[in-house]
């Protein structure tokens, strides 16, 4: 099982080590753009691993995951509009709001399966989106500019480029470790089991519904944290954060990386956003290349980018992800 060691231990370690060195690189080569760009990538990576947790592990294809980014982002921005900048108030509130929304919509959505689940999560995502557009006191369609960043006991953690990067990096690493622990626990095994055969689990006296709902809420809360970070990163929020295009993009990032390993989702996010940045630098018609590239990845690289690396993710065989 050397392949598995490479894939499940060495690869994520190398990935996080490389990401930890980004501020040093930016410092040495005096490249502020790379630092800011990677801050943005890592924020998206947090959302992507939370989506991979429910999509890759539990086969819950949420097409409304961007809504949680919005919950987190709007919580921070709306509080800042009322001159409340303390992160210890806004972040727990963001998580609570996202978690509550996930609990209510998840309880309803998880009654359905397959494409019906995809579409009902889209429906709730769209409801959140249109609610945001109607908040005329907070910018409505145009969005809301924040005149600063969150504060944490006056430390300036959010304001420095490098310190903010390390904050995002820390949140990503913590979320990754948390979700990996969940995935390896009994909880994670139930989720994977429910994906393979629900009747078998039920025969064992386990009701997968509650486990799925718990996973759905956890994913929503983690994505909300990322949303709160994103509001700080761009110092601006708008309903576009929650649009279905964004939710679709997130699904694409996760599939591109390869399902179910969590660090695959991080790889997918980096690949997607870096490719987009590099290709769009060459031509405004970069999608002419990017589109076929995605098709080729599907046709020839089974299992996304992670599929290109030898070894098992300690995971399922093909063809189960869609049930």
């Amino acid at each position: 099982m050397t392949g598995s060691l490479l894939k499940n231990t060495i690869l994520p370690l190398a990935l996080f080590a490389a990401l930890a060195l980004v501020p040093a690189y930016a410092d040495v080569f005096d490249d502020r753009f790379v630092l800011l760009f990677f801050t943005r990538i890592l924020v998206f990576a947090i959302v992507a691993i939370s989506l991979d947790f429910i999509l890759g592990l539990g086969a819950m294809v949420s097409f409304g995951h961007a809504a949680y980014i919005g919950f987190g982002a709007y919580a921070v921005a709306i509080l800042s509009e009322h001159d409340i900048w303390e992160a210890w108030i806004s972040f727990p509130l963001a998580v609570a709001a996202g978690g509550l929304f996930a609990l209510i919509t998840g309880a309803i959505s998880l009654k359905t399966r397959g494409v019906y689940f995809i579409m009902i999560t889209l429906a709730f995502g769209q409801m959140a989106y249109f609610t945001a557009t109607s908040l005329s006191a907070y910018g409505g369609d145009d969005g809301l500019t924040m005149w600063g960043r969150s504060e944490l006991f006056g430390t300036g953690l959010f304001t420095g480029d490098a310190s903010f990067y390390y904050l995002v990096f820390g949140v990503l690493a913590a979320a990754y470790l948390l979700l990996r622990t969940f995935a390896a626990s009994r909880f994670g095994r139930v989720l994977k089991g429910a994906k393979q055969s629900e009747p078998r689990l039920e025969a064992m006296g386990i009701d997968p519904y509650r486990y799925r709902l718990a996973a759905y809420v956890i994913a929503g809360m983690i994505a909300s944290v990322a949303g709160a970070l994103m509001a700080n990163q761009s110092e601006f929020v708008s309903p576009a954060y929650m649009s279905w295009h964004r939710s679709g993009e997130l699904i694409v990032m996760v599939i591109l990386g390869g399902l179910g390993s969590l660090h695959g989702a991080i790889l997918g996010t980096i690949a997607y956003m870096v490719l987009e940045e590099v290709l769009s630098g060459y031509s405004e018609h970069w999608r002419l290349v990017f589109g076929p590239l995605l098709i080729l990845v599907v046709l020839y690289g089974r299992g996304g980018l992670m599929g290109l690396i030898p070894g098992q993710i300690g995971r399922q065989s093909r063809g189960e992800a869609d049930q």
Partner: protein
Amino acid sequence: MSVTLLAVQTLNGLQLGILLFLIAAGLTLVFGVMDFINLAHGVQYMLGAYLAVACYQLTGSFWLAVTLALIAALICGLLLEFLVFRHLYNRDHLDQVLATFGVILFLNEAVKVLWGAAPLSLPVPELLDGSIQLMANFAYPVFRIALIVTGLAVAVLLYVLVTKTRIGMLVRAGATNPEMVAALGINIRRLFMLVFGFGAMLAGFAGIMAAPILSVEPGMGDNLLILAFVVIVIGGIGSIRGAFLAALIIGLVDTLGRSFATDIARVLLPPAAANDVGPAIASMLIYILMAGVLFFRPSGLFPVRSA
């Protein structure tokens, strides 16, 4: 909220419903029979519209343009099937999502390169120009009436095709249990190609008919694709009857909601709040409807495949 406005908006709603049905019919068949999620179905609608404009610029005749565009849309659909989709039938849904998303990106951009990003339009043919006086102070454009009538005719034709012919029987059987159909010696690949080409042509046809009344621009299919998915999910995947009913419901609810939600909100709320809430509720209506339907009927109104 006058009677005239209500009548106009009802007709507009019907017209949106018909367009949605033409797109959703192909989508639901492809999904139902081939178990294939084709996100690129929306760009086939866009291609239809662009091909119609291009053929019109070449020939100068609306009717010739419609005929040529229809054929071209069919060829494009089959070409896509041959190049990309055919290799995805045995893959899981998420692979299909990723690959067809790539197709969307490519074609939206290709259209921008070929015809530019600015919206184009197709003139309404002389024969269907002008409007009809339907009531004392209420005239409605002939072309839009023609669109509704044509759409209904296609729906009837499709109904006969699916319920009364051998091909239709195979399609229905394929939607219920494709393995069994293949086991009975039917060339399932050819059936797939037929269904696919037909679906692509219907979507293209919807695009051609929308070209004179909506602006033809890159990405015009994206939002309709989402609406078409809402339609097939409410109707039950694989069900033409369900798609027809759901398309009309969605078309009417969306159109009427957008024109009257603010007025209705004003009855309950102060004007300023109503102006905020009204449009948001109007945009949400179809999603609330879908969530409601799926809550009570998790496989849509007319489930085809037993789970």
